[in-house]
């Protein structure tokens, strides 16, 4: 097994406000928790070793493409057409869904259990009314994280109500509670198995990898075929998406439990189970909590995607607003998602931070805190919430009052209209956004695409293998080559290369922008503080919200798809790079300064070289996150694989959707392996 894959979608949701608490090792935000432990300072590589081959490779590919037009394309004899068997499988499911025992006695019950649980939570939330829910949010946040966060979360819920999104927010919340609980249980069990037995871990790892890299859209369709549209399919798709980080972190926590403590427990005659329950699990508490946090964040990002299959709630509002080209309404539904994500993440973070620290002496605590401490404190909280909820009901306001709503849609739409009127074309000197898009497409995307598609398939395989060996080990190279070959065998070589060209171009833009921003942010703490909420929003705002603005600015095509990808991937790159630059050994910086190095000399000769591991991780994340938006790009004219996946879902065409999804997985695997920072591969 080569390495710990940096999971494709995790940082998206995870790293968001993670910077309040650097993960265990402190150097990297990779949330599966594996990389933070790798010490990054002993990297024997020079920048040239990795960047130069890539540049050379690109040059060779483009030249060859120009020299031998039409020599590309995967030979048909080496491809396998899966549309027949997959199509038949889809038909079989539809025809037997109402009668086959597998459905009657298994899937049907799974579906019913999900519906009943979501309904139970939803009914409780509705019964609590807005007063009860807000009070509960405030009290929980207060107990776990203090007064400030309590006020923040109450304000967040109030905003959801103010925007007229109370009912959808409750629907999303109900769905989330059930989905996250299921992910935590499933992920926890898998993690337990993997943490206790190295063999299970070896078997599970590729499974978890696939679960994370496979674009959600690709498995929405099988879910829909089996469960039909709606909540059960959405919940189960969310579990597939959110369980892996939980499993990974639990396993990691169990494996890394302090050997000394375990030794001591064993010498005291504890049985295996006792050791697990009293020593290993408590020691892994922090990682497990981080896993739960991850599950929450990933579940929320799935809430919107799941709306495509009728999950309802906030995601559905965003999606419906998209249909009437109404950015304002989409934003009104997007903001509650961002707020929920931020509040839940900060609360879970604070809870994690508290686990390690000792509580202050009772006498030093505030009076109120003392009152609410311990189990009776919890009871008191619950009673308080019930009291508030009952009071709310008695006042007749269990629903958010209609008169307390503000409309966001109109000013937002006016702003968007102004933007598109004035920026689209005819801006003096720099040209309008449409011109930029045309230039980006004509000068970068088109040559890349035709170069890749024209170069012979065996050359591309060789190239990927060569880069893989240069960057990692032979093993990584082999994985990368096999992944690329699999794309050809699946029969989607051309569209996959089209997608690849888009990913490479978008990554280039992301890195240029990201590095520029982070160099600024690393120098000024104030800039970083100002940047943080912007990055939070970029990462948690559902992409559906900004699809219309990017089309309005860049026209239909691959350019707006790239723009959406950049918006999504930029925050992770900025965060990782800024942190990397900041954590450069202060002594090295000090000595450089004392030797009279100028600002730019310090940056070029000290900071950047020392922060190399972080920079490499940033490249890897950029690639992997950009790839995650490929599907969304299909909705704005990006075409290629993203469009095929969307087409498969829209037409109920299992073959097109699954094959394109599998090709995206292979692309992800290939790109991940050839950009993976070498430390990880070396140590694995």
């Amino acid at each position, binding site marked *: 097994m080569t390495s710990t894959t940096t999971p494709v979608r995790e940082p998206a949701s995870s790293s968001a406000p993670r910077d309040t608490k650097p993960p265990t090792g402190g150097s990297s935000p990779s949330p599966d928790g594996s990389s933070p432990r790798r010490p990054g300072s002993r990297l024997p590589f020079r920048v040239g070793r990795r960047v130069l081959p890539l540049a050379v490779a690109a040059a060779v590919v483009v030249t060859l493409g120009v020299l031998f037009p039409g020599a590309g394309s995967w030979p048909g004899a080496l491809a396998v057409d899966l549309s027949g068997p997959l199509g038949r499988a889809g038909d079989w499911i539809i025809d037997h869904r109402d009668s086959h025992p597998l459905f009657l006695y298994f899937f049907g019950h799974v579906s019913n259990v999900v519906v009943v649980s979501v309904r139970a939570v939803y009914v409780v939330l509705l019964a609590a009314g807005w007063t009860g829910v807000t009070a509960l949010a405030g009290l929980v946040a207060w107990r776990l994280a203090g007064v400030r966060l309590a006020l923040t979360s109450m304000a967040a819920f109030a905003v959801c109500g103010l925007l007229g999104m109370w009912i959808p927010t409750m629907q999303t919340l109900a769905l989330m509670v059930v989905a996250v609980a299921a992910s935590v249980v499933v992920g926890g069990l898998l993690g337990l198995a993997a943490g206790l037995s190295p063999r299970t871990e070896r078997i599970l790892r590729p499974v978890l990898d696939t679960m994370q890299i496979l674009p959600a859209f690709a498995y929405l369709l099988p879910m829909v075929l089996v469960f039909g549209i709606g909540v059960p399919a959405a919940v189960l798709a969310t579990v597939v998406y959110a369980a892996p980080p939980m499993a990974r972190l639990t396993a990691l926590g169990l494996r890394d439990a302090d050997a000394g403590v375990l030794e001591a427990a064993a010498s005291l005659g504890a049985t295996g189970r006792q050791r697990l329950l009293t020593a290993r699990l408590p020691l892994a508490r922090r990682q497990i909590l981080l896993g739960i946090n991850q599950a929450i964040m990933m579940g929320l990002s799935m809430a919107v995607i799941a709306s495509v299959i009728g999950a309802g709630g906030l995601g559905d509002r965003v999606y419906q607003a998209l249909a009437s*080209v109404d950015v304002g309404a989409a934003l009104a539904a997007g903001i509650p998602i961002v707020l929920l994500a931020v509040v839940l993440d900060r609360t879970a973070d604070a809870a994690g931070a508290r686990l390690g620290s000792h509580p202050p002496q009772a006498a030093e605590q505030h009076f109120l805190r003392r009152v609410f401490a311990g189990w009776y404190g919890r009871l008191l909280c619950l009673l308080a919430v019930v009291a508030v909820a009952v009071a709310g009901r008695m006042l007749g306001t269990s629903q958010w009052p209609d008169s307390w709503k503000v409309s966001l849609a109109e000013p937002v739409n006016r702003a968007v209209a102004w933007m598109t009127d004035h920026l689209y074309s005819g801006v003096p000197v720099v040209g309008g956004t449409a011109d930029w898009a045309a230039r980006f497409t004509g000068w970068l995307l088109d040559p890349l695409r035709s170069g890749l598609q024209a170069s012979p398939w065996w050359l591309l395989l060789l190239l990927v293998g060569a880069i893989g060996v240069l960057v990692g080990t032979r093993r990584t190279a082999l994985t990368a080559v096999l992944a690329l070959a699999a794309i050809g065998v699946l029969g989607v070589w051309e569209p996959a290369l089209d997608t690849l060209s888009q990913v490479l171009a978008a990554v280039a833009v992301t890195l240029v922008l990201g590095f520029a921003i982070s160099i600024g942010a690393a120098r000024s703490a104030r800039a970083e503080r100002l940047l943080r909420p912007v990055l939070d929003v970029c990462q948690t705002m559902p992409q559906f919200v900004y699809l219309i603005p990017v089309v309005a600015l860049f026209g239909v095509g691959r*350019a707006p798809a790239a723009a959406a990808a950049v918006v999504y991937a930029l925050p992770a790159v900025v965060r990782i790079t800024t942190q990397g630059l900041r954590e450069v050994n202060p002594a090295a910086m000090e000595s450089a300064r004392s030797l009279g190095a100028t600002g730019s000399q310090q940056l070029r000769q000290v900071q950047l070289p020392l922060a190399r591991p972080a920079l490499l991780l940033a490249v890897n994340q950029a690639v992997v996150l950009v790839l995650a938006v490929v599907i969304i790009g299909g909705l704005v004219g990006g075409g290629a694989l993203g469009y095929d996946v969307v087409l498969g879902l829209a037409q109920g065409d299992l073959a097109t959707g699954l094959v394109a999804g599998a090709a995206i997985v292979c692309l992800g695997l290939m790109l991940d392996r050839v950009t993976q920072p070498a430390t990880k591969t070396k140590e694995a």
Partner: protein
Amino acid sequence: MPETRTLPVRRTRRRIVAALAAASTLAVVTGCGAADMTRQASPYADAQGAKTVTLSVQSWVGAQANTAVAGYLLEHELGYRVDTVQVDEVPAWDALSQGRVDAILEDWGHPEQQKRYVEDKKTIVNGGDLGVTGHIGWFVPTYFAKQHPDVTDWKNLGKYTDQLRTPESRGKGQLMDGSPSYVTNDKALVKNLKLDLEVVFAGSEAAQITQIKQFAKEKKPFLTYWYKPQWLFERVPMTEVKLPEYKEGCDADPEKVACAYPHTPLQKYLNARFADDGGKAAGFLKKFHWTVAEQNEVALMIAEEKLSPQQAAKKWVERNEDVWRPWVR
């Protein structure tokens, strides 16, 4: 010594317990009998005591207008609670057969699904005409057609490929298609009519509308797949390009299509069980029947005035009592 003796005992006991647990889980799961996949309601339905009707909304605004007005009348005249689910057309048929959705109000013709669900499985029934006739075609903006009147025949499109070129069209003229969920033969048409056009998929109707408006603002020529009835015609007047005439069955083989799209009287479809015991709501949805102008009035309020579908429906309902009164009777 006792240690070694108790260990196997404990292990067997544990095994027995595990086996019992597994057996009882299985019994719980299977014991409650068969689950019916054709009866699957939303967990949000009926949550506040009222009877809920779930309507499917498709992504275009016309479909939103139908649902909004039907939903408004169901809520305010008949006392139902209405849930809407936005979902693509083919999955919507599937949802309808499972009872997750009670009705589709605007269907553009899905022969494969009709055969499977209406004729074979009988889980879906036809709910009658919506009253609106739909037509898909190729359109150019009217300002362009006025400058070059001959562009409205497909035979002359070749002359204009230069003007229709975009960065995405690979050197040919661009024919913009929309959402992947829509019925389209455009790729085959371009090939079979030997046109120098590249079909560029906007990927969603929202993207397509945004792009059309942007083109229109600049008075740029463009060629697009589009359909009637559609509110956008009120904002960006477009003229249809004549394709070889449609004859019954000329689109039977999707590879060999070389004719225009048909005119389709749009249909309503109801879940079979709902149609039988859906009471007043089912009766109302069967009677729901309006004209293109009426649908456009609501659609335009939603899409251009940015009213919420509910507000738009309310306005329309207040103005047109004589139209909807017979539906709720």
